[in-house]
């Protein structure tokens, strides 16, 4: 029996079409005895690399192809249908589709990339291959049931099919095949036996070779319903069981089943049964012709840098250019007298030459130079900061020799992987940087990297629910109850998570929802531009990767994701947009605008006492890297006093060191509570700076190097091996042997190994930490010395983890006056304003809120309002700023128009009439009184609560006062302890705390338990809460889904400034406030008297996820929890009936 090769197989990368991952297809092919398998995804080659790797693992030969919609030679006229009043038009999928296979090695692959790029070029949806681009000498074409020829046959028009075949034959000649498919359908449509037989007959008549395929959409039988859901999600219609369900046959059948299919088809076509072998042979022969080798033809494993002449090398070689630029840098930076620097530079240049990476360094240097010329803040991060050459070229700021950073951590002769240098730029100007890079190297060499968006549980539930015609309100509620977990965990989460208990009760009601939701797990559902990767290559880029335009900016984007491009040997430069850089740039610009003096952040005095005092006070909200609750706790215990302390602090606050509990011994040693110990006096050098505790990668490299004398490059390789338990054993033996050979005692070796082993691969690259600590110090310095400008920058660029309203509360606490929105004074961005001046040193700067924070304002509107300032009257404002009516109403609600007289509601009425008048209804009475002020209309003004509600609704911030202030009386009745008073609370005291939730996390922690960490803001400060798993049944749902919380808990103290409350019970404060207002304290008491849900046992029954680093993780930790993001909360706890808008 001949074998069989599926020439037409799609994976999940065919968005909302294929139901199986490429890995699964390769596995199944291998299991079912198929020797080769083609991947022909719709409109994309994005799955090719993963497919290749999976095939290599499964022992299957991969074939590459793509299925594209092809423009018809003579465009058909379509009747124009009336635009629907509701629901939108049908997704048009009527264009014929054809399968292309790469046949001829690298040419075939290049042709494939080219036609995909051509089809995607117009940016239409779905992509369409213009007929003029429909050619390629290295391609084989399969005309199947969905092609124009197949459709003519289905319509019973062989004459027309013959006519349509002619142009195909003209272009592809002998490489044309007719694809026949039988899915057991009735009639003559695609998948029917009659069409399959007609195709075979037509092929014989036209002397075109037929091939058999199964048009595979999923790997296993029984996945038909998943295909139905995907169809529904793609077409945006519900599944209609009365028509058009998937046949369930489009799975990866084995050779026997396909032989049976072939027999049925040839018999139906009127041939003898053994003709089926001929059909299979033709299929096999076609597969055998398609020879694309992953290594040679796709370019996996080779590197392509931009041509040297583009990066300033001129006619010299890249290496010589690099050497001379580095030498120039030595002189420029004043190192030319220092021998050690020269030696290190030459050593590094040797390594670079060894790998031939000189063009790479020049490329990055070129990009950094260009960015800097544009006036954009730029900094290198990552291990690249450890290279002196990078420093000399101006890529990295910090001097690696001074900070003891090692080149070997970045690149060595023994490291074969591509080094990567990441650069940080201002987030607001990231796209400008992209444009500059594209402008410098040209679109044929530059592409951004794709990032597939895959189905997780919430999207899966929404799409499946819509396909199953479920009630949209139900879908919404179910989807929102889930934390952001994988779709395949949906049922497990229902069984195990306490906050889903209520939903689990109605689980049965939704039938197949859960099963189908899980089946969508991790399938790509869209593709976006990766936020930071940029591909740089030589001019051959477009023949190695398919490129499509990004939807928003129209940048060229490779269809491969960041892992794929590394495998393909494409050089990726990570350009990260860092909001903090933008925020600091804005702060500096504001200070210059307001005061005329320019602060150079890169030259702020090091070791500023006020800055370190601020950091030690743990009021570090908004400071880069040290603002999270965990970091504030750590900073409180560590009490940093120098830049080096900050570097250590940032390195310690990583999952690894926290899990390995390196924090406690370090802090004990630092404060002198424990002696500093070294395993051997030789190791004092590398370990002294961190009191004998290993914190940095560089220290491990040094320890291994000192103990074994193996050289630092080898030591770095050893360090990488530590994370893998298998190689760890081997390294241990090797380490013991070599250390003994150097004459160390067995005891010393044992103790050193313990340290090295415990450290594992955790810890942090010091080069990275140094690069991080610079903006940390700079932001803290700004906060200490120029708070108003600092908050203006923060609020404008919104970095960090906290909602804006919390930053505003912090500003208020630090005594920065908050000035309300005012159309005559506010700018597009947040600004600073002089509030009072008494003597030169006593200037108080206030923060003026920005127009851009108004809900629904467009950039153009904000700019127009700001440009037209000042306005004399409401009419003047209306006529010159031309705001839209809703925007003007919102501005009135938050008091931005208060300067024009009258109360806010009267203003709204005037605006409505101005709007009516503008539409030509003819103005009745003039709403203005005396030209400037607006006449009152006698409407009731907004009440104080309504104003606050409007501020939250329009600005997402409680701008005039803290929203908790309104509840102060009730909280006093309850005996709630404020955050300020909590600082004096005793360890172990039971307290009540309350506030608005700011951030909630369930990070992975050492004990392997799920702990909910939350931060409350009550206007006087922040309260950090922790809920351990014994309280989850009682609290989890309330904590995740309420915004205002009342919590009973026990105070935990770990240091003078380190304090948290361990929650035991939680209530929705908004509900209690309402009960208090309606029914008085007795009703509140009744609510508090309701029993809390009983704590059950551990529903996961001790199930833990074993992390590769050795420690255990709770299966549901480390997820984004359910509930609204506090940053998105725009509603007050209740909407009073009279509230505006």
């Amino acid at each position, binding site marked *: 029996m001949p074998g069989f090769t599926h020439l037409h197989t799609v994976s999940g990368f065919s968005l909302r079409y294929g139901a199986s991952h490429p890995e699964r297809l390769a596995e199944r092919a291998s299991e079912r005895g198929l020797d080769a398998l083609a991947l022909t995804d719709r409109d994309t080659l994005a799955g090719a690399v993963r497919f290749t790797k999976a095939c290599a693992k499964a022992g299957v030969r991969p074939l590459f192809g793509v299925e594209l919609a092809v423009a018809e030679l003579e465009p058909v006229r379509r009747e124009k*249908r*009336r*635009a*629907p*009043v*509701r*629901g*939108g*038009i*049908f*997704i048009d999928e009527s264009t014929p589709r054809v399968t292309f296979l790469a046949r001829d090695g690298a040419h075939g692959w290049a042709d494939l990339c080219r036609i995909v790029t051509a089809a995607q070029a117009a940016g239409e949806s779905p992509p369409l291959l213009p007929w003029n681009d429909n050619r390629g000498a290295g391609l084989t074409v399969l005309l199947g049931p969905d092609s124009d020829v197949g459709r003519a046959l289905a319509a019973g028009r062989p004459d027309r099919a013959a006519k349509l075949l002619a142009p195909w034959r003209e272009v592809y000649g002998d490489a044309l095949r007719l694809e026949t498919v039988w899915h057991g359908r009735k009639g003559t449509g695609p998948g029917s036996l009659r069409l399959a037989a007609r195709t075979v007959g037509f092929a014989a008549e036209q002397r075109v070779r037929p091939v058999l395929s199964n048009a595979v959409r999923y790997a296993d039988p029984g996945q038909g319903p998943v295909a139905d859901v995907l169809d529904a999600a793609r*077409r*945006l*219609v*519900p599944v*209609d069981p*009365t*028509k058009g369900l998937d046949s369930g046959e489009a799975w990866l059948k084995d050779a026997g089943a396909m032989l049976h299919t072939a027999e049925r088809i040839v018999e139906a076509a009127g041939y003898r049964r053994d003709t089926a072998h001929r059909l299979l042979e033709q299929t096999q022969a076609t597969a055998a012709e398609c020879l694309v080798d992953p290594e040679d033809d796709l370019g996996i494993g080779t590197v392509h840098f931009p041509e040297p002449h583009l990066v300033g090398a001129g006619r010299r070689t890249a290496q010589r250019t690099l050497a001379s630029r580095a030498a120039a840098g030595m002189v420029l930076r004043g190192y030319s007298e220092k021998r050690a620097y020269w030696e290190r530079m030459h050593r590094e240049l040797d390594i670079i030459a060894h790998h031939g990476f000189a063009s790479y360094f020049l490329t990055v240097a070129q990009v950094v130079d260009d960015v800097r010329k544009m006036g954009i803040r730029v900094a290198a991060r990552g291990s690249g900061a450890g290279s002196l050459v990078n420093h000399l070229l101006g890529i990295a700021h910090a001097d690696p020799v001074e900070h003891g950073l090692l080149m070997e951590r970045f690149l060595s002769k023994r490291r074969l992987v591509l080094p990567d240098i990441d650069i940080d730029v201002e987030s607001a100007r990231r796209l400008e940087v992209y444009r500059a890079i594209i402008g410098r190297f040209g679109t044929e060499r530059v592409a951004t990297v794709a990032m597939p968006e895959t189905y997780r549980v919430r999207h899966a539930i929404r799409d499946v629910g819509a396909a199953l*015609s479920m*009630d*949209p*309100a139900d879908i*919404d*509620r179910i989807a929102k109850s889930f934390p952001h977990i994988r779709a395949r965990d949906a049922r497990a989460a229902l069984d195990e998570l306490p906050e889903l208990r209520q939903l689990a009760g109605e689980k049965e009601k939704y039938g197949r929802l859960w099963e189908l939701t899980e089946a969508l797990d991790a399938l790509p559902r869209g593709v976006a531009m990766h936020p930071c990767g940029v591909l740089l290559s030589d001019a051959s880029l477009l023949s190695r990767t398919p490129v499509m335009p990004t939807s928003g900016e129209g940048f060229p984007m490779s269809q491969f994701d960041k892992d794929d491009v590394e495998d393909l040997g494409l050089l990726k430069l990570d350009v990260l947009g860092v909001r903090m850089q933008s925020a600091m740039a804005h702060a500096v610009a504001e200070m210059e605008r307001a005061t005329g003096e320019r602060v150079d952040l890169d030259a702020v005095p090091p070791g500023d006492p006020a800055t370190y005092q601020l950091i030690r006070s743990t009021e570090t909200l908004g400071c880069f890297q040290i603002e999270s609750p965990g970091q504030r706790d750590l900073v409180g215990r560590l009490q940093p006093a120098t830049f080096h302390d900050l570097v250590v602090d940032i390195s310690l606050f990583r999952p690894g060191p926290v899990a390995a509990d390196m924090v406690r011994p370090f802090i004990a040693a630092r404060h002198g509570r424990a002696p500093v110990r070294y395993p051997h006096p030789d190791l004092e050098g590398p370990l002294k700076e961190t009191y004998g505790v290993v914190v940095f990668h560089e220290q491990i490299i040094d320890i291994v190097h000192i103990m074994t004398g193996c050289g630092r490059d080898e030591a770095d390789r050893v360090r990488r091996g530590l994370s893998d338990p298998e190689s760890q054993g081997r390294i241990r033996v090797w380490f013991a042997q070599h250390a003994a050979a150097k004459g160390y005692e067995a005891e010393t070796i044992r103790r050193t190994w313990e340290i090295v082993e415990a450290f594992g691969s955790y810890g942090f690259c010091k080069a990275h930490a140094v690069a991080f600590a610079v903006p940390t110090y700079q932001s803290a310095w700004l906060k200490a010395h120029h708070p108003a400008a600092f908050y203006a920058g923060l609020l404008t660029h919104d970095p960090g983890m906290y909602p804006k309203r919390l930053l505003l509360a912090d500003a208020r606490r630090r005594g920065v006056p908050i000035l309300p929105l005012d159309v005559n004074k506010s700018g597009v961005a947040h600004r600073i304003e002089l509030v009072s001046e008494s003597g030169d040193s006593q200037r108080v700067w206030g923060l003026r809120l920005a127009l851009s924070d108004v809900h629904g304002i467009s950039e153009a509107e904000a700019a127009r309002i700001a440009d037209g300032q000042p306005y004399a009257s409401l009419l003047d404002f209306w006529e010159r700023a031309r705001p839209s009516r809703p925007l003007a*109403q919102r501005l009135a609600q938050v008091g931005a128009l208060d300067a024009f007289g009258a109360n806010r*509601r009267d203003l*709204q*009425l005037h605006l409505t*009439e101005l709007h009516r008048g503008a539409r030509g209804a003819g103005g*009745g009475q003039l709403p203005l009184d005396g030209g400037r002020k607006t006449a009152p*209309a*006698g*409407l*009731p*003004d*907004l009440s104080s609560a*309504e104003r606050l509600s409007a501020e939250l609704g329009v600005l997402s911030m409680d701008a005039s006062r803290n929203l908790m202030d309104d509840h102060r009386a009730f909280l006093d009745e309850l005996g709630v302890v404020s955050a300020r008073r909590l600082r004096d609370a005793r360890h172990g005291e039971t307290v009540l705390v309350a506030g608005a939730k700011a951030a909630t996390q369930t990070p992975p922690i050492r004990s392997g338990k799920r702990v909910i960490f939350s931060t409350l803001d009550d206007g006087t400060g922040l309260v950090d809460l922790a809920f351990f798993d014994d309280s989850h049944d009682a609290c989890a749902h309330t904590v995740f889904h309420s915004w205002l919380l009342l919590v009973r808990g026990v105070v935990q103290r770990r240091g003078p400034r380190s304090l948290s409350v361990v929650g035991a019970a939680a209530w929705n404060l908004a509900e209690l406030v309402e009960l208090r207002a309606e029914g008085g304290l007795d009703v509140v008491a009744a609510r508090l008297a309701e029993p809390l849900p009983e704590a059950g046992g551990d529903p996961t029954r001790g199930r833990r996820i074993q992390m590769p680093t050795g420690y255990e993780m709770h299966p549901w930790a480390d997820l984004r929890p359910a509930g609204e993001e506090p940053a998105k909360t725009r509603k007050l706890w209740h909407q009073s*009936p*009279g509230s*505006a*808008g």
Partner: protein
Amino acid sequence: MTILCVRFQLPPMHEAALPGLLGLLEEFTPVVEALPPDGALADLHGAERYFGRDAVALASVIRVRSLALYGVDCAIGAGPGPMLARVALGDARPGVTCAVPEDAVGEFLADRPVTALPGVGTATARTLCEYGLDTLGRVAAAPLSTLQRLVGAKTGRELHEKANGVDRGRVVPNAVSRSLVTERPFTRDELDPDRHRRALLSAAEELGARLRALDKVCRTLTLTVRYADLPHSRTGSSGGTSISTTRTRTLGEPTAHSVALTKAAYGMYEALGLQRARVRALVLRAEGLDPAEQASHQLTFDPLDEKARRIEEVADRARAKFGPHAVMPGSLAA
């Protein structure tokens, strides 16, 4: 304290019982105004003296009789004028008659939401609430000119008077002029135009049959399409009413003829041009009902129309004899 507003608790689709219930009220007073589908206003000016009881006491009598005779419970509001009686009905429950105190009308209205007033629909209420006029007390306090600027001159004046308790309305006796409604829900989100048309056909057939049974003709036909989607603003919360599209068409001549009704319904449906809309229900409503004998009919030379009417007549008789499903259009029989 002489006007009653009665709402009978009729099960849905039992509007046909309303005329009988109105007859019950007419035993007390000839001045009865029907408020379809399930309510009525009754002016008891003369009745109070005749029966020797005040309106609130009579309300109890009405309720007892309604329960005894028809098995239908009712809620009753009482007030000095029809508007106030209707407002009072909002607070009434079966057995608890709510009466507006004649001397404290202002206080009675003050705390009520604006929607409590008859004639204030969602649109007006939204406008008023936007400007902080969410209770009748606040509306009453607002200057008349401001109200008129908000909602227009006439509505503003009426609103101002009503909010101040000035009730100029009278009970106007009318025949039961009401509408007939029929709904065709779907079990899933339905996109198929064929099934939509079948639902419309069966709804129009039913309406026609019911109209003819009542000897009525209708002047206008209204199509409401309900969708599965939630209004955009409500997707955030769990719940909310689904959105819908409504179209009304005035018929060429008042008719109860199923074919004419079907044609009008199809016309409205086609004009929507629906493609991907997830339809959950189609509702057809016949409005402007008049007695059939008053209807005019344009004769034509085309015998088809005449034939269709005769077939319909025969079909009606067959249905009367053998049940409603005895005769139906072929496309519905499948």
